[in-house]
């Protein structure tokens, strides 16, 4: 699987004398099994890119290619693309509506015209992937906790067997343990199922731990496309554009200023802990 944005731009008023561009000449390719995070301040163009990726919005300029084919060609089956590139919106639990968890998850496969047995088989597989046991099948989605509802919503998209999964702030409003549960599940999907993941997030701590690649948007342009470690080296620039680095990065830099020669690239608590123990001669 390869999903590519090629020189994409977007303007709401392309006919105007001086059109305003929400996205300016952005290019990147998402690969199979890759876990990328898309970060940027409010209004930086993240949502526009997300809508390009599953064909909800057509770029004013540039192309969106799925396995090399232009998805906005007249004959391209966009409906199939939207199954292959699944999108989980913000607060997806607001979109649950069926009487039971199983029925809700079956909704996508049903729309695909799959026979009943296959729908149920897919829904059950999706439930296993997100860690919902069989006992949930007959429950009403509305009696579940916030984190469980979100799992149901993600399972509903997974039941369409997507090759790429885009999640728009899937952890907003969840408690810390709920955040780790959901992101751990998503990480497993990319590791074991080979699903490409694009995570839109405002939490630098989360993307540092879970993502392999960071795409940083600023005012409609792609500012960085690199590993989290490489991107967080630019923590001062990130602050200027409404972002930040994980607190651990700031601790590492503060320690270096005090003369502790820890590796300033540490991004997580265990990494920095190991570094401090090394410097103190305890490791």
């Amino acid at each position, binding site marked *: 699987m390869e999903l590519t944005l090629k020189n994409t731009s977007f303007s709401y008023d392309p006919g105007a004398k001086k059109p305003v561009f929400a996205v300016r000449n952005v290019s990147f390719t998402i690969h199979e099994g890759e876990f990328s995070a898309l970060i940027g301040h*409010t209004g930086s163009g993240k949502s526009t890119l997300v809508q390009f990726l599953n064909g909800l919005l057509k770029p004013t300029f540039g192309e969106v290619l799925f396995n090399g084919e232009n998805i906005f060609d007249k004959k391209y089956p966009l409906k199939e693309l939207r199954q292959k590139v699944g999108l989980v919106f913000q607060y997806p639990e607001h979109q649950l509506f069926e009487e039971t968890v199983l029925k809700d998850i079956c909704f996508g496969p049903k729309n695909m015209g799959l026979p009943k047995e296959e729908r149920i088989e897919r829904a059950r597989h999706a439930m296993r992937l997100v860690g919902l046991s069989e006992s949930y099948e007959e429950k*009403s989605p509305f*009696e579940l906790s916030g984190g469980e509802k979100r799992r149901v919503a993600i399972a509903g998209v997974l039941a369409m067997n997507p090759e790429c999964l885009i999640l728009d702030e899937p952890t907003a409003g969840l408690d810390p*343990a709920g955040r780790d549960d959901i992101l751990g599940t998503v990480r497993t999907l990319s590791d074991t199922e080979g699903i490409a993941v694009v995570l839109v997030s*405002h939490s630098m701590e989360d993307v540092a731990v879970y993502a392999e690649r960071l795409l940083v948007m600023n005012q409609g342009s792609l500012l960085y496309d690199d590993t989290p470690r490489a991107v967080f080296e630019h923590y001062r620039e990130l602050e200027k554009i409404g972002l930040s680095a994980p*607190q651990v990065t700031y601790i590492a830099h503060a320690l270096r200023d005090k003369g502790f020669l820890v590796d300033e690239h540490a991004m997580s*608590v265990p990494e920095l802990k190991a570094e401090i123990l090394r410097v*103190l001669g305890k490791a």
Partner: protein
Amino acid sequence: MNIIEILNLVHEYKEYDENETEVETVRAIDDVTLSIEEGSFVTIVGHNGSGKSTLAKHVNALLLPTGGTVLLCGQDTMKTEELWTLRKNAGMVFQNPDNQIIAGIVEEDVAFGPENLGVPTEELERRVEQALERVGMTAFRMNSPNRLSGGQKQRIAIAGMLAMKPKCILMDEPTAMLDPVGRKEVIETVHELNREEGITIVLITHYMEEAVDADRVIVMDGGKLVMDGTPREVFSRVEELKACRMTVPQVTELAHELRKEGVELPEGILTIDEFTEALWKLARAKIPE
């Protein structure tokens, strides 16, 4: 003086199945007693479903007790005839900035609350001006709110409340949908209001870093208060917090993890400065002069 007094509060609601037969009674708040001092900054944390929002909604009578009593500025929230005074005294900011803005121009949005209270025009203009100034949004007064960032919208929502001159502001995860700078803007704004105007702040959050500068942190679990203390006291109990599906700021967790390896840092470190300082002292003591 206590601005909020909660005595043996119980809140129950009934769950129904699809045939509208009662299935069970859920106890969302289970015998909570709590007083909040006027002018203090209190943070409430707890996992999803622990009862924090339900508790906050009792303070300005968005919810009424099943049992027990809630007093705001000495006024019982069950006295519904006094509802408007009550809501004027305690404003509420919610999670989603887009659901709280109703007017097409920033200043009109800020004026909406006090206008409904019947504040005369001149006074109204003064209040709107002061409120926008207070949250640092004066430059945007004639703008359309839908062009603003999430952090700016939340500040407009806060200004709308300030214009009603509340004694207390309740905030239910006001930063959950914001980017890091938006989060910082909102949190700094409420700290200023607390410090400079003496407004009592009750902040519900899932971001532990936002609790660090509060006077007091309350942890809820299963509808009960399970911890209550200064940020340092509460965040010293790392393992207990984790058992409640909570976490601590990364710097606190790092210090705690190092202690487990025999590095003698104090518990309850809350800031990067405290951490580096403590580690430096420790390292220096080890070096023979």
